[in-house]
């Protein structure tokens, strides 16, 4: 599924990476625990998280995660956006809960990591 479709399903606002919305996503991992995220080895992954700090982006950089949706109406800081842009990471923000976001993406055909 393309990022632009995910943005539409989640009614999400694209914060950075507007030119990369044709990017394909195959699987989703949802967690506020970066320790868990660091154990994931999947390509074309979307991270759903409500954890909003610079380590969310650092963890994504190390794990080669290029797509992040911040749920629960959390807002990315300027520092997070700058680091995401440097690493070609797309950040979107949505007002839905983690559960609702996961449910909508799953119902629309996106796969879990495991």
């Amino acid at each position: 599924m393309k990022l632009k479709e995910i943005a539409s399903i989640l009614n999400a606002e694209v914060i950075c990476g507007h030119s990369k919305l044709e990017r394909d996503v195959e699987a989703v991992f949802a967690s506020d625990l970066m320790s868990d995220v660091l154990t994931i080895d999947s390509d074309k992954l979307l991270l759903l998280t409500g954890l909003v700090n610079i380590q969310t982006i650092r963890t994504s950089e190390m794990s080669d995660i290029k797509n992040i949706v911040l749920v629960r109406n959390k807002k990315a800081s300027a520092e997070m956006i700058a680091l995401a842009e440097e690493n070609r990471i797309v950040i979107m923000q949505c007002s839905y809960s983690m559960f609702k976001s996961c449910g909508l993406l799953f119902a629309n055909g996106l796969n879990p990591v495991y």
Partner: protein
Amino acid sequence: MRFEYNIEAGNFTKAGDASSSFKKVLKQLNVDPQIIKRIVVSLYEGEVNIVAHANGGKVICEVDTNRVQIKLIDEGPGIPDIEKAMQAGYSTASAKVREMGFGAGMGLQNIKNNADTFNIQSEVGVGTQLEIIVNLPKA
């Protein structure tokens, strides 16, 4: 090639700077992306541990044609029971560390899982040393 980075205790804004710098080096050296990921995830876990638990430290990365060797050397407080520290779920992390998304007692095990060789030595009151080796495939 040898690269050395200093790690500041308690500074979560900078946690990951060393890993990020070394990742750029590995990319420039055209190391396979899957291997880069194993190396930098291990390094980042170790770097976060130094920021979270130690009184500062340093990372020494050495790259040759066969392998990447990383040493993470911190300045205390040391780990009283390494076997316990290696157990999944065991953590002494502070609330601040947990707020950053870490401290779930998974880091050392994740380093071990990503490394071809993993060694840990620690002395209470002195410090902890990790050695991580990831082999590079022959060109």
